[in-house]
């Protein structure tokens, strides 16, 4: 084992803790983000946005002599609004206007586009536009959105609901033997994803090529291109989308923007490059949000802790429009299919609504619905455990899918590919020193209490065609492709349609190629983020890149390797089947030749090759799909120790452990980085982040001083332990891990807080767990206790 570890340390291939190829440019301030690009003659775009959440536009007037610089919806000839129509029956489609000119449905919706030679001047122009509104009552509470008296956002709908869905699997039969029935209501707040770089774009029309080029801070350039082609009624061939360096995405940059469509139209109309850089205020008040769920959930269990069934009614606040390409329904579809978590149960019933409100559209944020679902189920489970007087670890161990059951098809037909869930739980319990904390708790008095909480979940990643088709998502991923091209100097150029904006693909995909064909990662160049250069891809989302693009790079390199071997075989007079590709060399027995020489021969010295040489050359495209497209299931157990100051309602994280199984790790350093970063975002969900709206639909956070992101000082030194159970479905056994860290924290922290407060019976049921919410939970518990006392 020690030797194997040693080889891994030394290698640059799969499993190596290789430093990142992309770091140098960022560390030297040489990254090139969209706002860093300038074009001759470029105009800056600023939008006039709706100050109201719900209103009819009565009139719009441009300032004098600004017809060439100010544009309303009526000026966008032949441009269609954005539509993302779910394939599921009963779905009510919405049309998101590019510039609203009849009605606004959320604060921040763009109404007019203003151009000037600086952003400040474009904003000056926006101030001078006259718009008269007739304000309508706003729908701000998702639980009341479907009420009869609620005003309709989309007037041709019967109610403010995109879709209603029902799942019932053996529910009534399963609950017959229940000894306890535990009900809870949970809520997760609306959040902003808040990558440090916002959205941004430059649209350029090239007269000569008759090509529209859009530089955009996006996670999915090919999908943006398809969406643009639809809205602008253009051929794909007339559009090129480039995603340069992108400053974080997390889902926020996986959406087609009205701003993109608008800028592209204007760039073509005016024949001038146009730049729009989203500012923080726009991001917070106008950009798509995420995460707002409400659950009414009931657990049915036997006295010994066996979980029999879960019944849930969930509402997802989908905002005003169905956003492209994920639609308004992805979250609810996930809720209904993922709620049972990593557990075995006999019955399941779930009803979901994706409701429309006067808020920005909802968009899948890292973890998508899993974070909310994990919170609801795991906190419910602790409630059941408390009722049954068994420990949180025991109720989990009792109900988790066991390793010998793997692969396991769960109640909602999820195919868990591999893993040892109980082992993850056991390790987390040991690592956090649960026994020690229990002892520590026994001596506690006073109003500062410690608590410990667990959450365990599995994360479906890289799921493909059948899953997304089943969820009715307008964009269904199929095969992922990659191009591998040996360059004449023996370097390797990889081209993928996904985009790397922090995921480290420039390094990890090079590691995969290195393992396949032995070329040094230093000599491997990843080309990504340009529709002109890369194969079509749905892009970077769904924890899919390392599995899908990694698999595709593996396939392409395998194919390229065959070609290299053939040529090398000829040059060395060896059987290609005997040739190994390692360390930049092709070797068969004692004879070796450099891959560089093979490349040089193919490109520049073809006279050395026989006439019947394979003419397909050293430039290959290969497609890849996992052996079953149900997705890899990474899993993790989070364990956290908290201190609750009961007078302030303040929660401090004292220790945090994550036991994680990512399958085969391509680069453990990168896996850790994804888990740390995800966990910080999950802690943000748990403790800080909340986009509040008032009754008139006004967002109450327009700065980062109002919308609180987690800081370095809010986080403990998170400890990660790895398990490494390869997935049988993926090419190298790797599993998607990108979202995992963000899933567990709200559940684990809420369970820890409830554990700390269990001596008075207080429970928090809503995230973020602000001091006000914690104090209110404590007050309710203590007040009901004391009033009971008064009565007695």
């Amino acid at each position: 084992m020690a030797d194997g570890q040693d080889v891994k340390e030394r290698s640059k291939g799969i499993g190596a803790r290789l430093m990142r190829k992309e770091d140098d440019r960022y560390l030297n301030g040489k990254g090139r983000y969209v706002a860093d690009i300038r074009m001759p003659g470029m105009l800056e775009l600023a939008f006039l946005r709706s100050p109201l959440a719900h209103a009819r536009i009565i009139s719009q007037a441009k300032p004098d002599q600004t017809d060439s610089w100010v544009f309303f919806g009526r000026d966008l000839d032949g441009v269609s609004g954005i539509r993302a129509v779910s394939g599921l029956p009963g779905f009510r489609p919405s049309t998101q206007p590019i510039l609203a000119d009849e009605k606004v449905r959320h604060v921040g919706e763009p109404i007019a586009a203003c151009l000037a030679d600086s952003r400040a001047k474009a904003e000056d122009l926006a101030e001078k536009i006259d718009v008269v509104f007739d304000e309508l009552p706003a729908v701000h509470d998702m639980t009341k959105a479907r009420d009869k008296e609620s005003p309709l956002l989309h007037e041709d709908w019967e109610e403010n609901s995109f879709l209603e869905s029902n799942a019932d699997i053996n529910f009534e039969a399963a609950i017959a033997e229940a000894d306890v029935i535990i009900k809870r209501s949970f809520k997760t707040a609306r959040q902003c994803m808040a990558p440090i770089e916002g959205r941004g774009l430059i649209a350029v029309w090239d007269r000569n090529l008759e090509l529209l080029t859009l530089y955009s801070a996006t996670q999915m350039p090919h999908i943006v291109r398809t969406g643009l082609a639809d809205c602008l009624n253009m051929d794909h061939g007339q559009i090129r989308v480039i995603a340069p360096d992108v400053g974080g995405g997390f889902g926020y940059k996986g959406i087609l923007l009205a701003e993109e469509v608008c800028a592209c139209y204007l760039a073509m109309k005016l024949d001038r490059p146009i730049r729009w850089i989203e500012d923080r205020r726009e991001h917070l008040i106008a950009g798509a949000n995420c995460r707002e769920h409400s659950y009414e959930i009931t657990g049915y269990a036997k006295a010994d802790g066996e979980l029999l069934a879960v019944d849930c009614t969930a509402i997802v606040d989908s905002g005003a429009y169905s956003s492209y390409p994920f639609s308004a329904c992805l979250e609810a579809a996930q809720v209904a299919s993922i709620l049972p978590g990593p557990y075995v149960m006999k019955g399941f019933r779930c009803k979901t609504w994706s409701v429309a409100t006067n808020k920005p559209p909802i968009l899948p944020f890292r973890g998508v619905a899993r974070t909310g679902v994990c919170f609801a189920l795991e906190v419910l489970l602790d409630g059941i455990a408390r009722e049954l007087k068994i420990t949180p670890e025991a109720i989990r161990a009792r109900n988790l899918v066991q390793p010998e059951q793997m692969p396991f098809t769960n109640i909602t037909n999820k195919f868990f590919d591999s893993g040892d869930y109980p082992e993850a739980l056991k390790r987390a319990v040991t690592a956090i020193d649960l026994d020690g904390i229990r002892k520590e708790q026994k001596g506690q008095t006073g109003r500062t209490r410690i608590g410990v909480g667990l959450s365990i979940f599995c994360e479906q990643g890289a799921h493909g065609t059948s899953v997304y088709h089943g969820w009715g998502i307008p964009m269904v991923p199929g095969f992922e492709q990659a191009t591998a091209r040996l360059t004449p100097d023996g370097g390797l150029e990889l081209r993928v349609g996904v985009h790397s904006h922090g995921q480290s693909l420039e390094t990890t995909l090079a590691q995969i190629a290195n393992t396949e064909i032995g070329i040094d990662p230093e000599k491997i160049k990843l080309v990504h983020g340009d529709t002109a250069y890369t194969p079509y891809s749905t892009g970077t989302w769904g924890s899919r890149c390392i599995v899908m693009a990694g698999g595709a790079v593996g396939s392409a390199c395998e194919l390229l390797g065959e070609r290299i071997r053939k040529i090398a075989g000829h040059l060395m007079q060896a059987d290609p089947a005997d040739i190994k590709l390692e360390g930049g060399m092709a070797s068969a027995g004692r004879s070796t030749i450099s891959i560089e020489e093979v490349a040089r021969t193919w490109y520049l010295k073809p006279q050395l090759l026989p006439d019947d040489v394979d003419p397909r050359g050293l430039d290959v495209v290969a497609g890849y799909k996992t052996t079953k497209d149900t997705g890899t299931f990474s899993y993790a157990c989070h364990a956290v120790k908290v201190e609750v100051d009961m007078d302030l309602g303040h929660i401090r994280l004292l220790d945090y452990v994550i036991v994680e199984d990512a399958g085969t790790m391509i680069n453990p350093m990168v896996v850790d980085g994804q888990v740390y970063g995800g966990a910080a975002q999950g802690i943000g969900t748990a403790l800080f982040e909340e986009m509040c709206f008032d009754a008139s639909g006004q967002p109450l956070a327009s700065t980062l001083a109002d919308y609180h992101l987690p800081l370095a000082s809010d986080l403990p030194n998170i400890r990660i332990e790895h398990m490494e159970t390869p997935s049988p479905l993926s090419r190298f056994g790797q599993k998607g891990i990108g979202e995992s860290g963000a899933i567990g924290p709200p559940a684990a922290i809420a369970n820890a807080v409830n554990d700390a407060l269990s001596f008075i019976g207080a429970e928090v049921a809503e995230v973020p767990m602000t001091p006000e919410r914690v104090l209110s939970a404590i007050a309710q518990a203590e007040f009901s206790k004391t009033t009971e006392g008064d009565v007695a």
Partner: protein
Amino acid sequence: MTETTVDLVVNGAPVSELTEPRTHLADFLREDLLLSGTHLGCEQGVCGACTVFVDGRPTRSCITLAASCKGAEVRSVEGFDDDPLMKALRDAFKRHHGLQCGYCTPGMLVTGYDIVRRLPDADAERVRKELSGNLCRCTGYAGIVAAIMDVLENNPPAAKVQPHARTPQKTEKSAAGSIGTASGVASPAAAERNVPASIPAKSSLAGAPSLSRTIRFNVSASDIWAIVSDPEKIVSCIPGGQLDSITDGNLLQGKCAVSMGPIKAAFAGTARMDLNEAEKSGHVIGRGKDGLSRSQLDGMLDFKMTGLPEKGSELTLDMVYKLTGPLSQFSRPALVAEIADRILDQVAASIEALAKGEDPHETQPRNLNGLSLMASVFMGWIKRTLRFR
């Protein structure tokens, strides 16, 4: 608008550029000097992505005006090529995976440099505290903290960038420059355009914040009624209030200037005033819009005069207000509530002054305490938990 010349030293080289005074240092570096390594993440002084050294001190370049940096020495991420401490930090960031998307990185490096230089004995907890002004959304800060600790613990090279001394300067006599023209102020036409003529529906104020006051007067109810039922008089009691016209008998057009420190809004609009002479009560409902910010203020006031059995009278005021648009989009509603409270205080004080025949604008508001509704559970609990401590 005239531009101003900004002379300063950037990354060791003297620079002189014409720019608008409103240009902040980050835009000056990025747009005028094409040094795009300095990133903008919020322009609100919170995220720290734009942090650069100004005179050797970490500075938020998004809330520092370029024109304020005349004569300063600025160093951005592009200006550390031969700096051994920056090299050590960069290497450590790389080893510890202290960056993912790279966007916050330039600001992190400047702050990290300052931490190593200023706090050689910092432990991880201190490093986390010092990093709290720099947001990273990718790494969870783990690699950043580890990288800075690594540099701190392994004989960091001496810092070449050092803070310049900031000593008080000698008094000099010189002109203040060409200030005084009001070109930055929006023209009154812009501020007053699009005055809403509509009156909000009462239902649109449901759930909005409310305030109440009861004021006693030594004068008779009819004397006070003469003030409160007279649009001109009552508007003169509103601080910043101005009545422009009355149409259809009870539609009042006017404005109300409200200020909250440096934030000044002028709400122009229309209100309807309905009086019930018999009951000596009235109802005012209206809507005003601040033209520049596109914020809107809807308000409703109910008032009733009662004669007191002995002598004098009592006026009850119930106000409901709803603010929408940019001025409302903050998480500190207590501030808005406090200002609304003060305005109502001033209205009350002015009515009293007018009744006494004084100038309402000369009066100081009395400090009247409003009724605040508190959740019984909360109050009960608070009394129990904190009574004995």
